[in-house]
C-alpha cells in the first residue's frame, strides 16, 4: 500500500543525496539551450527553481515564476527516452551499457506512461532489446505530479495524467505556498529512503492540498482529444480530405517524432573505414516522416507527405493498439509545441471527427 509523507523544501537535497548514495546516476530537469531539458544533476541547485515555460502550438518560451517552485514547468523537449533508448548506439561490436543505474528525477505522469509503452515495445515481444533492458532495469524514478497544465497538454484525454498512479518509486506533489512536497511511496526501496530521511506522515490537510493540486491541473488541460473511439475513427477515415489539408502545412521535418516520448523507430546502418576495415553496425532514431523510412527497392511506399503524416498519427492513436496492445500517445503535447508549423494533432483528429 502506498503511504504519503511530507518533505520540506530544504530536505529535497537530502532525498537526492540518499538516492545517489545508493549508486544511482541522478538525472533531472536542468536549464539548457533556452529550455528545461534532462541532464545530470548534482544537487537541488541544478534544478530549474523559479522557472516555468509557456507553451503553445509551435511555441516554447522560458519564463520566470514569481515563486521558487522546483518543478513548476511542463514537459520539455526531451523525455527520459534519450537515456533508456539513446539517439544512437552501436549494435556491433556490442557496446557496453553503463554500469551505473539511472535515477530519473521529476518524471511526469505522461512520461511514466510513455516509459510503460516503450517497455511493451522493447521488452514485451519475442525479441526483447537487451540494450533497453540494461538501462531500464532497476532505474529509480521520482515522479512529480503536475502542478499546472501547459497549453498543449492533453494527458487527461489519453488517461495518462496528470497524477502519477504507477511506475514510480516516489511521487512528489509540490505544495509551493507551503514550501514542501507531499511524497507518495510506490516501492519498498522508495519507502526505505523516506524512512531514512525521517519524513513525517502527511497530515490530512496536506493530502487534501496535494489532491487539489492535481485536480486543478486536470481541470486546466490546454487541449483535449475528441471523446470517441479514435482507432475506429482513423481506420474509417484513411482517405479523408483532411490528410491533404494537413499535408499542405506539414514540413515533414520529423520534429514531432524526435520529441515524442514513445516514438521508437530506429534505422540500422553499417559503417567502416575507407578500406572496409573496422566494420560497425549502428542504430539511430529514425522518423516515419523521412522518405527513407518506407524505402523499398525502387522507391518509397509513403512518397507523399500526406501518407507520412497519416502513418504517424494513425500509428500513435490506432495501429499502435493492434501492434502492442496500448495506444502510442500519452497526451504530453510535445509534438504540438515543437512543430515548427504549429500542427496540433488534437485539432487534426477533431477535424476528421467533425464530419464523421
Amino acid at each position, binding site marked *: 500500500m502506498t503511504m504519503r509523507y511530507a518533505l520540506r523544501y530544504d530536505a529535497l537535497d537530502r532525498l537526492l543525496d540518499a538516492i545517489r548514495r545508493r549508486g544511482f546516476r541522478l538525472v533531472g530537469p536542468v536549464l539548457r539551450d533556452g529550455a528545461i531539458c534532462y541532464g545530470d544533476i548534482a544537487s537541488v541547485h541544478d534544478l530549474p527553481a523559479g522557472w516555468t515555460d509557456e507553451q503553445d502550438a509551435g511555441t516554447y518560451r522560458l519564463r520566470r515564476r514569481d515563486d521558487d517552485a522546483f518543478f513548476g514547468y511542463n514537459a520539455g523537449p526531451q523525455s527520459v527516452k534519450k537515456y533508456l533508448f539513446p539517439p544512437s548506439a552501436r549494435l556491433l561490436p556490442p557496446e557496453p551499457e553503463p554500469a551505473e543505474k539511472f535515477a530519473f528525477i521529476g518524471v511526469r505522469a505522461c512520461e511514466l506512461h510513455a516509459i510503460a509503452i516503450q517497455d511493451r515495445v522493447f521488452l514485451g515481444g519475442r525479441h526483447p532489446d*537487451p540494450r533497453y533492458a540494461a538501462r531500464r532495469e532497476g532505474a529509480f524514478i521520482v515522479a512529480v505530479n503536475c502542478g499546472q497544465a501547459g497549453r498543449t497538454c492533453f494527458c487527461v484525454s489519453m488517461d495518462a495524467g496528470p497524477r502519477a498512479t504507477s511506475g514510480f518509486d516516489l511521487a512528489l506533489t509540490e505544495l509551493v505556498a507551503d514550501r514542501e512536497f507531499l511524497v507518495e511511496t510506490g516501492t519498498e526501496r522508495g519507502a526505505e529512503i523516506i524512512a531514512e530521511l525521517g519524513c513525517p506522515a502527511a497530515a490530512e490537510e496536506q493530502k487534501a492540498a496535494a489532491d487539489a493540486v492535481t485536480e486543478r491541473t486536470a481541470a486546466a488541460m490546454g487541449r483535449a482529444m475528441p471523446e470517441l473511439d479514435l482507432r475506429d475513427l482513423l481506420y474509417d477515415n*484513411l482517405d479523408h480530405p483532411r490528410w491533404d489539408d494537413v499535408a499542405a502545412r506539414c514540413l515533414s521535418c520529423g520534429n514531432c517524432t524526435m520529441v515524442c516520448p514513445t516514438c521508437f523507430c*530506429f534505422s540500422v546502418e553499417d559503417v*567502416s573505414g575507407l578500406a572496409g576495415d573496422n566494420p560497425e553496425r549502428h*542504430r539511430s532514431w529514425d522518423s516515419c516522416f523521412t522518405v527513407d523510412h518506407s524505402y523499398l*527497392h525502387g522507391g518509397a*511506399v509513403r512518397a507523399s507527405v500526406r501518407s507520412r503524416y497519416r502513418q504517424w498519427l*494513425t500509428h500513435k492513436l490506432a495501429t499502435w493498439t*493492434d501492434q502492442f496492445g496500448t495506444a502510442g500517445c500519452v497526451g504530453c503535447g510535445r509534438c504540438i509545441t515543437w512543430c515548427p508549423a504549429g500542427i496540433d494533432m488534437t485539432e487534426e483528429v477533431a477535424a476528421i471527427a467533425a464530419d464523421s
Partner: protein
Amino acid sequence: MPPIPDWSEPWPWLVTDVIRETRDTVTLGLTPHEPFSFLPGQFNMLSLPGIGEVPISISSDPADHARVLHTIRDVGAVTRALCAARPGDKIGVRGPYGTDWPVAPAAGGDLVFVAGGIGLPPLRPALLAALARREQFGRIVLLYGARTPGDLLFTKEIADWRARYGLDAEVTVDTASPSWHGNVGVVPNLVSRAPFDPLTATAFVVGPEIMMRFTVQALLAAGVAGDCVYLSMERNMQCAAALCGHCQLGPFLICRDGPVFCYERLARWLLVREL
C-alpha cells in the same frame, strides 16, 4: 534475471555454393553454424560487416537442415555484395523470422502457387513441402511470370516437377524474345484458365504488390474463397525483431505478423494507397 540474448547478433554461416540463376540473381547455399530448421515462407536476415543487412526469404527445402538456400536479386548495395559472395566466404545470418505458408492445412484440396519475378524463391520451400507429400493434394498448380525469358528462375526444376509430380505449371513473360514460344502477358491473366477447383483450392501468392492485387482479384473472381488466399508482403525491414518500426503495414508489423498473411486479414489495408 538471465541476460537477454541480443537479437542483432548474427551467426557466421559458410558459403558453400554460389549458383548464378540469371543475369541479376544468385542462389547462395549456406552451411549453418548448427542444424537449422525453418518453416516454408520464413526469412533470414543476411549481412556483411560494414556493408549492411537485408531480409531474404529462404528458398531451400525445409527438410534440409544442413544446407540453406537464399535466392537473391541484386537490387542494392547489400544484395549486390551478397550476390558477389564466393564459396568459403562467411555471411552473417540470423533467423528464421516470420509466419509460414499453411501447407499442411491446405491438404485435401488443390494448391495454387502464383509467383511474379523474385517471388518464386519464397514459394519454393512450400512447393517442395507439398510435392514431398504429393498424395495429400489434388492438383498442384504453379503460375509464374517474369519480365523476360532470361529472367525465369528454376526453369529446369519446374520441368522436373512437371514430369515427376504432375505439377501443372504455366509460365509467362512480360516481354518475349523471338525464340520464346510460351505465354506472353502478366501473371494474373493465367489464373482464369488454370486447371484448379476453386472450391477446394488454397492459393499462395508472392510478387510485386500490384501483381498480387490483380492476382487476388482474379482468384476471387474464379471463385476461390478469400480466406484460402495467402500473400507474402514486403516492406522496408531493418531489425526483423518487431522493434525498428519500418515494416509497418497498418496494424501489422510484417516481420512479426507476416510476411505471410491470409488475404482476409489484409483486404481492407490493401485498398489504401501509400499505407
